[in-house]
């Protein structure tokens, strides 16, 4: 895994859940390749459910979080004013950095002003796909979204992440269905399928025999009362 991981994808594909889960997992690693760890929240398209809402949790786990210009008081601001400080983790060779983009090509656009950090090969661009989202039910539609993101950023997507799910209604067969489509998408686009996410606690790895590699996700972003 390269130093900078940029996470893009369709609205609601699960980018933020993946970014927060990945940061939490990396923060627990003992032998770190990079001593520092940061999440850069570049979602200026959406005012709700952004990684900055989990700022406290991330900071408790020594993950630095960079978002808008208003720091913690800005969690509900929808001003597209980014803090200049977020260039720090992009420049810091000792900092593993996860960049959480907004949804779709429109939400990814904001990355372009930081393109100088993505000229070399020190980064990866992941596209998250959920084949149970209404607008990406088919390989063809998912492909159109991934292509739109590549066009917008003028950067190749280096890896696909299968995050097919229905929140708490996610069942192993739903994941398997999504995995089949993700493999087809990967083959068509000649982009490697990096891993398949599954909601830890709802589905166990044993139920997903044959699907590899797997990545457990927490449901950090969803308040419990929403499942009542």
């Amino acid at each position, binding site marked *: 895994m390269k130093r900078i991981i940029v996470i893009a994808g369709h*609205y609601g594909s699960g980018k933020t859940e993946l970014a927060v889960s990945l940061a939490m997992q990396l923060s627990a690693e003992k032998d770190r390749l990079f001593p520092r760890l940061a999440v850069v929240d570049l979602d200026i398209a959406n*005012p*709700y*459910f952004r990684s900055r809402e989990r700022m406290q949790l991330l900071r408790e786990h020594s993950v630095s979080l960079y978002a808008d210009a208003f720091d913690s008081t800005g969690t509900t601001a929808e001003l597209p004013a980014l803090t200049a400080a977020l260039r720090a983790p992009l420049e810091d060779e000792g900092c593993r950095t996860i960049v959480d983009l907004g949804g779709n090509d429109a939400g990814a656009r904001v990355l372009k002003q930081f393109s100088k950090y993505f000229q070399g090969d020190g980064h990866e661009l992941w596209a998250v796909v959920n084949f149970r*989202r209404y607008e990406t039910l088919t390989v063809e539609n998912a492909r159109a979204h991934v292509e739109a993101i590549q066009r917008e950023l003028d950067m190749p997507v280096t890896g696909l992440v299968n995050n097919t799910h229905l929140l708490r*209604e996610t069942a192993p067969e739903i994941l398997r269905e999504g995995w089949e489509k993700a493999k087809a998408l990967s083959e068509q686009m000649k982009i490697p399928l990096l891993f398949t996410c599954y909601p830890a606690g709802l589905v166990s790895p044993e139920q997903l025999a044959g699907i590899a590699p797997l990545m457990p996700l927490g449901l950090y972003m969803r308040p419990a*009362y929403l499942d*009542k």
Partner: protein
Amino acid sequence: MTTDKVLMKGNEAFAEAAIRGGARLYFGYPITPQSEVPEYMSRELPKVGGCFIQAESELGAINMAYGAGAAGGSVFISSSSPGIALMQEGMSFLCSAEVPLLAMNVSRGGPGIGGIQPGQADYYQVTRGGGNGDYHIPVFAPASIQEAVDLLYEGTELAQTWRNPIMVFTDGMVGQMMEPVKLPDYKPVLKPSEIAAARNWACTGYTDRGGDKERRVVKSLRMQPEKLEEHVEKLFEKYARAEKELARWESENLKGAEVVFVSFGTTARICREAIEILASRGVKAGLIRPISLWPFPNKAFDEIDFGTTKAVISAELSMGQMITDVQLALNGRLPVFLAHRTGGMVPTSPEVAARAQAVLEGLK
């Protein structure tokens, strides 16, 4: 065809449900937290032969809805709190002129520009209305994306049946969150040439009406007091029927409950979690969830177990607005208390449970 369960963001699902329910015209102006609705409509309506127009403001949008509705179009509009406030004058005009409209308020914190996090402080706005004169708008408050989808799907037909605006009132949390939903099949829609016959009051011009030369007038101006009174009396016969036919609610755990929550939308889901917390502490709590806010489901309150229930708590994302209707429905039968947060803050279920315990303790 009805879809399999798919994951959708509230706002996208609302827009898709309105289209599947037959809405073909949308006029709007973006405002958080519902801007995905106009975004979706601008992209999807033209694909089904519909029309999207971004108005210059919410005042423009509601008056476009008035005109298009008067011509027999199936119109859907949406906005959020301050935007709905701007539409109030138009709502009164539509009610007076008996023009159908499906409207949605994805509400946020107020007053004023307020904030962009969820709120329910538009309760008075949507149930009482800020427009002038004697009128009512049926208001439905879904607690899940699926329920919102079902109500919006039904909404276009309901608005036509009652020849009145129908409002779906939800909050920013439901608009912004994701949930698995089943989308119902597309309803058949009238061809423009069929509107004149099917909606025999609509101002379609003479073109599609064969030999029929009767003038059709859609208006809200009535200069003779006798005529205006007669018209309002007629409207209120309709509203009286609506009060009987449109009251909807859901009740849970009322039998043997010591305390009953009354709440709608997002807050009802928090109350459900609070009820579980209270049960684990040996306190039996129930829930009345009004689905229609106007007409308010007064009958639901007759189902309370008056032998065991000591208090009723109106749980709201406001300083207490629905509580007035709860008090009217109970008519002094039980003391009514408030559990609330406002300004875009959402109470946690332990907070709501603690409030219920404090209320019961205070009554001892």
